[in-house]
């Protein structure tokens, strides 16, 4: 998305919009580098809201004696006080020729007026939103490798993501490290040599595996999620949610529509299908037993037992056993 800007393309006014710090830093750095490529003597003023005052703004944007170019970066522009924001808007109406102004804005409603004013004044917009979908992070990771002129297989990329987590800075750091440590095309084996495990295992995965009767996998997931610091109470409430879902679909109240059923099970309507899938192999008695197990486990976690981790392991195993229970 970035990385191919020449001096000519650097506009006198840019806005970097988004809350992903790594991307914002990169965008700013690239803009600065692009200007610097044209003029090595360029002055860079990188200002936080606390460092900005009306006097400072005038100082950095007024014409200079020797006509050198300047880059003025206003970080967290949404946090500028109202008076200063007005100053900046005023400058936008009469920009200086030799100044490249970069406004960094977190997006969102705060200080939106300034952002709108800048866009209206013809600012180049660079989006740096946090990637929310797994596919976007995968894309980012692959991009990291191609920037370094390397390739990574799809499976390897996925394994690396699983191991590192969702923080872009950490992903980028892991990529840099892998690029330095390996040669050629990066495959799953290479990733496995440096990274193992799961950075993110949630209580929901544990619960899903447990009610599907895949006890061994559930236990593995449980260990992972405890290891990455998920609170035992949250894991148990995920278990409770899963068992509650089973209870609703195993013996639904008579004559009830799917939409209402989904509401009772506290799941989105599309999830009913997978709930029904999970409910196969469960008898009402088994589900009732699982409900008991969850309640027992909540008590054990909250002080009736000594070891929450043990209580959860016991719960997963007991739920697995309850699944086979016929009466």
């Amino acid at each position, binding site marked *: 998305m970035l990385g191919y800007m020449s001096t000519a393309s650097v506009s006198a006014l840019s806005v970097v919009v988004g809350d992903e710090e790594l991307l914002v830093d990169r965008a700013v750095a690239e803009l600065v580098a692009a200007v610097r490529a044209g003029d090595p003597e360029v002055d860079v003023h990188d200002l936080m809201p606390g460092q900005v005052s009306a006097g400072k703004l005038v100082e950095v944007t007024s014409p200079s004696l020797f006509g050198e170019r300047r880059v003025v970066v206003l970080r967290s522009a949404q946090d500028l006080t109202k008076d200063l924001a007005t100053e900046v808007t005023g400058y936008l109406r009469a920009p200086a020729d030799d100044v490249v102004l970069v406004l960094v804005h977190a997006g969102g409603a705060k200080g939106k007026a300034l952002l709108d004013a800048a866009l209206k004044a013809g600012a180049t917009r660079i989006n740096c939103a946090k990637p929310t979908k797994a596919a976007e992070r995968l894309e980012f990771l692959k991009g990291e490798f191609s920037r370094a002129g390397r390739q990574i297989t799809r499976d390897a990329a996925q394994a690396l993501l699983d191991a590192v987590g969702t923080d872009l800075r950490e992903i980028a750091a892991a990529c840099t490290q892998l690029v330095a440590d390996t040669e050629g095309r990066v495959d799953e084996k290479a990733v496995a040599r440096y990274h193992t495990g799961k950075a993110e295992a949630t209580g929901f995965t544990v619960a899903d595996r447990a009610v599907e009767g895949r006890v061994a996998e559930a236990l593995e997931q449980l260990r992972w999620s405890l290891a990455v610091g998920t609170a035992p109470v949250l894991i148990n409430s995920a278990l409770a949610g899963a068992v509650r879902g089973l209870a609703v679909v195993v013996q639904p*109240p008579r004559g009830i529509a799917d939409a209402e059923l989904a509401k009772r099970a506290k799941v989105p309507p599309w999830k009913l299908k997978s709930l029904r899938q999970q409910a196969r192999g469960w008898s009402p008695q088994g589900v009732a037993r699982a409900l008991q197990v969850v309640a027992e486990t*909540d008590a054990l976690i*909250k002080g009736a037992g000594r070891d929450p981790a043990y209580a959860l392991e016991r719960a997963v195993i007991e739920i697995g056993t309850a699944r086979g229970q016929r009466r």
Partner: protein
Amino acid sequence: MSVFDDLVGQDTVIEQLRSAARAADGLLAGGTGAGMTHAWLFTGPPGSGRAVAARAFAAALQCAHGGCGHCDSCHQVLTGTHADVLYVRPTGLSFGVERTRDLVLRAASSPTGGRFRVVLFEDADRATEAASNALLKAVEEPSPRTVWLLCTPTAEDLLVTIRSRCRLVLMRTPGTPAVVDALVRRDGVDPGLAGAVARAAAGDVERARRLAADPEARERRREVLSMPARLDGLGACVSAAARLYELAEAEAKQTTAALDEQEKADMRAAFGEGATGKGVAKAVRGAAGALKELEERQKRRATRIKRDTYDVALMDLAAFYRDVLAVQLGAQVQRSTESHDEDVRRVAGSSTPEATLRRVDAIMRCRERIAANVHPQIAIEAMTAALYLG
């Protein structure tokens, strides 16, 4: 008229307290005071009037005429404004050691009115173990004129070391006629309604009064009692649990919401919000910490209200299955769920006494779990599932 009029069906207790108050009078006149002591423990089932009895006794101790009920002193004690009576009513889940130490200190001062310094500690079972230990010395050997009145449901709720230092006052469960009489005579409740709520409350005067005064409370009880008949599958169990959970949340919110806002506004006003002048800004900033503490306290109070609500609902359910058991065994006892007689008979006909006992056990286990801080919805779901399967 006497301060003991508010006690319902507790004749032996009244006699015991009256003679103690007479002995206390003798003590003040320079006598030996035989029959009076400095530490009392009022125990009895919920609603039997432990706190009412303790309060009446406090009034009798402070009154020159043994609790006449119409002098200034009696009036002040009964309304809770008497200078020599310290009222302690834990509003949170527990009563901590720091507040106990403070209490001990204040209890040690001499009475300003020349009679007794009385500490009336309701729900003393909410004192933590450390708090109880802090109380120990003060209860054993208080200042000459200090009298401790502790209230707990049973004597076993207190540390044995405290229990052994107190004289026990055992309240009994008042009979239905006594409760009906009290409701009609004192609260002016319609006799028909009084009879129904007295039977429903099964000896709990407070609950009977609440049911008589609050149609919503009657409605909630009706809803809880109709639950067992509707448990026709696990889905229904989950729904019933969710419904109980919502009811309790709503109840707590209704009770606390108005109170919380008012308290917060008062606190802010006390710190000078909205005022002008030098130093106000600094004072208002200082309010943040105090506000946070207040919110913590409010949260604990809300938790307690929720737990009490669950407890009431669960006890109603237990009463339902008690009546089921009575029908199954053909016992000739008064039943408290006459309004749901049909449901009771149907459940009784379709299950065995053993199953009924297992169901009662499930309800009691649910109470224990909620008391042990298990998420109420999870605890109640486990219970309704057990009720369904029997």
